């Protein structure tokens, strides 16, 4: 096996293979990393229901196995959990599954010395998007006429979102759902990074058969992860088929095009200056100063928060300095993960505001955050 190889792989353990999203490879890589003492701890997402997952940090193999399967309606970002690991164990080693936005957050934190990337094994998950849990439950009742509690399985196949219960199975096209205001989270719709090329290995079901995972190996660490699992006899591999490779590339490029379309649709420029002013004043007016957006932000890396340095909840400013400093401060590193909008109790469209600013700055300085360790943060002065 070499760097750059594309293969298909699956778990040798029948139970993991069955429970996993597509062959249980990721779960097996994580357990192998613990068993082979490649890492001290693993972060994984423990399922509470189809609509809720709790991230756990563990060195217990059984707990990792319980986390198998993809939760498409648990839009959580794992970056800050990795930061907490390195705060507790500066010399520790860690492995975790990472969607593109998890991986990009982790790389931005690594640039700011909060995460040691050399000691972090990133098992990338291809991602076509996540769904907001509450809206998805409403969608199930309205569009699918299924009780959310009855759902036992959820799947995406050929642009259709499929829900299964004990009795039935229903599929509706994602386009149709999104037209009706359901489907993926808004930021996922315009996200152009579906295959996490910045990780050690990218895993996904595009281009793979039933109960197998398509894997692309990017780094030395990725190779180590795979070889370790093979040596421990936990996974089985086979070369990817030409057809599989083509399907994966094609699907990826289709998704990219769709994302670009959404970006255009959502980010309509507000040409008039005064209109822009009133837009910002109106949307930020609802802020209740809870600072939740700052806590969840995967790229926020201050030890002492800059954004509250100049701001006091008693201020009677027309636009909150807290948000302006945050807009400025993460404009170079914002990856558009959508966490801020998700947690905002006042329903301020924060991700859109941050993206509007970040698009300007990132284009100006020709910097795309979270892609590799080569380029320093664009705030750095030469």
């Amino acid at each position, binding site marked *: 096996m070499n760097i750059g190889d594309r293969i298909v792989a699956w778990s040798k353990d029948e139970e993991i293979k069955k429970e996993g999203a597509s062959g249980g490879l990721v779960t097996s890589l994580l357990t192998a990393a613990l068993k082979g003492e490649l890492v001290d701890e693993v972060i994984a997402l423990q399922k509470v229901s189809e609509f809720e997952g709790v991230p756990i940090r563990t060195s217990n193999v059984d707990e990792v196995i319980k986390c198998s399967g993809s939760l498409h309606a648990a839009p959580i970002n794992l970056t800050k959990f990795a930061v907490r690991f390195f705060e507790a164990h500066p010399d520790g080693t860690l492995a975790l599954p990472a969607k593109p936005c998890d991986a990009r957050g982790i790389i931005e934190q690594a640039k700011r010395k909060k995460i040691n990337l050399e000691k972090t094994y990133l098992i990338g998950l291809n991602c076509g998007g996540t769904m907001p849990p509450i809206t998805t439950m409403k969608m199930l009742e309205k569009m699918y006429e299924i009780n959310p509690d009855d759902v036992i399985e959820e799947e995406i196949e050929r642009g259709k979102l499929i829900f299964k219960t004990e009795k039935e199975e229903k599929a509706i096209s994602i386009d149709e759902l999104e037209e009706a205001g359901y489907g993926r989270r808004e930021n996922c719709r315009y996200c152009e990074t579906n295959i996490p090329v910045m990780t050690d290995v990218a895993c996904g079901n595009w281009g793979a058969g039933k109960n197998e995972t398509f894997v692309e190996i990017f780094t030395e660490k990725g190779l180590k992860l795979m070889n370790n699992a093979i040596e421990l006899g936990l996974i089985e591999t086979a070369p990817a088929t030409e057809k599989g490779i083509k399907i994966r590339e094609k699907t990826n490029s289709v998704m990219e095009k769709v994302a670009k379309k959404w970006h255009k649709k959502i980010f309509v420029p507000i040409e008039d*200056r*005064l*209109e*822009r*002013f*009133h*837009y*910002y004043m109106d949307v930020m007016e609802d802020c209740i100063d809870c600072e939740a957006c700052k806590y969840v932000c995967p790229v926020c890396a201050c030890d002492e928060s*800059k954004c509250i*340095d*100049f701001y006091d909840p008693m*201020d*009677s*400013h*027309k*636009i909150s*300095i807290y948000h*302006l*400093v945050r*807009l*400025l401060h993460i*404009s170079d590193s914002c990856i558009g993960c959508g966490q801020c909008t998700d947690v905002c109790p006042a329903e301020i469209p924060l991700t859109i505001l941050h993206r*509007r*600013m970040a698009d*300007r*700055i990132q284009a*100006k300085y020709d910097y795309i955050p979270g892609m590799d360790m080569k380029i320093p943060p664009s*705030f750095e*002065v*030469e």
Partner: protein
Amino acid sequence: MEEEWTPKITLFCCNWCSYAGSDDAGVGRKQQPPSTRTIRVMCSGRTDPGFVLTALMEGSDAVLFTGCHIGDCHYISGNYKAKKRFEMLKEILDEIGLEDERLQLQWISASEGSEFAEYIRKVTEEIKAIGPSPLRQEWMK
């Protein structure tokens, strides 16, 4: 009696060049409008974006960044940092719909008193032409 409106302009001067330049303008009795509120910082690199945003929110109609000419900063690279911050601030102020004139950057050396006075006259006219800042609360004088 209606007085003519004069803008309030917050002026950040670095200790070594632009503050001395503004002093030079005063000593040389160069005419300039009473529109500026000067804040002396040790170096233009000390001008935190938070200062600028606070000034604007608290009723300034414009904010001026000034400092030593590039290459002359007494702390070697302070004005490079100021320049980068200025560029970033420009973007965000434009994004939230503020006029371009409300944030400006000018390098002024200790001996440029007349240039300094000239610059303040020019900026004051520009701000007069565009009127009070929309960020200013109605109750702010």
